[in-house]
């Protein structure tokens, strides 16, 4: 037994020291007051000051996930079922690009692209779709949803297209032979078979979205904003790790709920 323990010891130590311990510490700090006694005051303060930001974060995350799921299914579906000789390879080549761009660059690009007099509105004004005087800035929840989606769609598509490619083609071909259109084939034959992979990808995207700091900091002015920005704010301006960790607790809870829902679903599928 001991050689085995020794073998995994480095990995275990790294996980304990670099992951479990900080996590535990941050959870504990959320419940310790300035006087060192246990308290729920930090949670109460987090809710009082940043309740709106918590709700906002959840809504933005859900909105982003919806958009991500929709577009990824469309792209992966077309990659699997499309027949064009040039459009499919072109799409396959192009859709992954945002994967290699860091969030902070995406944030900076979005900031000048979506501003009131930014590139997007300037283009729309030039072609006459928008009046320059009434153009509005998209640097609010819409900017966040668009930026998160833009960054995460390739990731989800990558997993989804891989899963779709490894499906047994005969089910698809059988459906096509019986006269099912491509859209119907996607929704009724392909999607149900790759649902677990889609859910994994979306849960991972949720965790990513909840942890990105650069994008909300660069796009959003004032409140409400994403929780991460307010956590950084608590630390930067007040040196207040307690309330920051209390906010962190809410993000753990949110991602934990998603992970739990996913685990339950996958267990049920296995037992069936």
């Amino acid at each position, binding site marked *: 037994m001991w050689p085995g323990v020794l073998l995994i010891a480095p990995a275990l130590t790294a996980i304990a020291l670099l992951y479990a311990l900080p996590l535990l510490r941050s959870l504990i700090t959320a419940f310790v007051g300035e006087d060192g006694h246990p308290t729920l005051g930090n949670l109460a303060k987090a809710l009082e000051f940043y309740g709106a930001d918590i709700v906002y974060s959840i809504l933005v995350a859900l909105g982003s996930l919806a958009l991500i799921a929709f577009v990824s299914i469309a792209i992966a579906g077309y990659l699997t079922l499309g027949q064009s000789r040039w459009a499919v390879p072109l799409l396959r080549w192009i859709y992954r690009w945002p994967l290699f761009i860091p969030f902070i660059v995406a944030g900076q690009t979005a900031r000048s692209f979506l*501003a009131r*007099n930014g590139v997007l509105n300037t283009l729309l004004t030039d072609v006459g779709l928008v009046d320059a005087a009434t153009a509005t*800035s998209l640097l609010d929840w819409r900017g966040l949803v668009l930026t998160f989606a833009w960054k995460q769609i390739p990731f989800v598509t990558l997993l989804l297209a891989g899963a779709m490619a490894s499906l047994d083609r005969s089910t698809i071909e059988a459906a096509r032979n019986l006269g099912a259109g491509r859209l119907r084939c996607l929704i009724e034959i392909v999607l149900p078979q790759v649902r677990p992979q889609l859910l994994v990808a979306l849960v991972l995207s949720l965790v990513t979205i909840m942890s990105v700091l650069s994008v909300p900091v*660069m796009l959003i*002015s004032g*409140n409400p904003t994403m929780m991460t920005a307010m956590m950084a704010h608590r*630390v*930067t*301006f*007040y040196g207040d790790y307690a309330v920051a960790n209390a906010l962190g607790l809410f993000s753990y809870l949110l991602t934990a709920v998603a992970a739990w829902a996913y685990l339950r679903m996958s267990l049920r599928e296995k037992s069936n």
Partner: protein
Amino acid sequence: MNIRIALASLLAATTLATSVSAQTLTVITAGDTNMVDYINDYLGPKFEEGHPGVTVRAVGTGPGDGGSQAIYEKIHAQKDKSVWDVDVAVVHQRMAGKMVEEKLLANYRDGVATSKLVTRKTAENALGVNVSGYVMPMFHSQIAIAYNPDVIANPPQSYDELAKWVKENPGKFGYNGITGGMAGVGFVFGWMYAFSGMADEIRNGPWADGAADKWAPALASLRDFNQSVMMTPGNAGTLDAMNRGEIAMGPVWMDMFYTWVADGRLNPNLKLMILSPGMPGQPMYYTVPAKSSQPDLAKEFIAFATSPAVQADGIVRRFNWFPGIDPQNVKSELTDAEWQRLFADVTPETLAERGWSMPQAKYFAAILEAYEKNVAK
């Protein structure tokens, strides 16, 4: 076996680190990357020229008070050790006060040749804490209002006038609230100086419990003011919005403004002014931790960094900051044009009259929290 190799290499690394640190002066600095660049590319090499065998190593901890917070945490963590791994720390006012109170800094200024050139009050008092002897100002930077004279020929001169002006010109004034940078924070402090009726207490203390309760009218008017302004994402966001012509006025750091103009990133026609009664500014301080391993070398470094020649060439010419030592000592090192440029929009008299300090540390945090509670929501 593996463990032995690991131990041996650890030992080797430690020995190496100790032997190197004998000639290495570790300077840790808060602030943007330009602070690290300033030390690595300019100050360090110049100091090394005069001190053969010495290597200056700069470590940056990030912008704003968060950067100073990180320095405090780093030094505080090794409080009980006999020697600390930081020789010079460059920090903001709030953290300097706290570190002096917690006895983490050395009282070194009398041993520095340039100490007599310092005249600013901030060298003695950092947000209500007596720091005399513990700090040398590296530079002073000031928050001001940038405006576009092509759009506004006669900008409002006071917070009162500005409040009226934004009602008549909704969306033409922009600032970043209290997130994303100190320019917006400083603007809010100025608002409180103007409308809270307790500007002196806020700047000089003493802290009074329940002070925030008296701020309701000032905060309500700020909330109302915010309805007619454009919120920008951060200090740079304000300048970007001015560049794109979305707003015609907004608070900025003067040094950042001049640097952007010099780099060609900002419309050079824009001008600066300071609202009355006053807008805050702040220095950054050179400090020596109480248990620096090389206090004498650290003092020499600071004396060099605060000498008139370096203050003129490095602080004013390269970074457009106001000098940390008395500007009159720097004047002879600058050309007339450079001196004029420094005070082009804001005269030395206006700066003296309207360049106020930041709030005392407790008021500082209290105003931010009151803003979050009453204005931001």
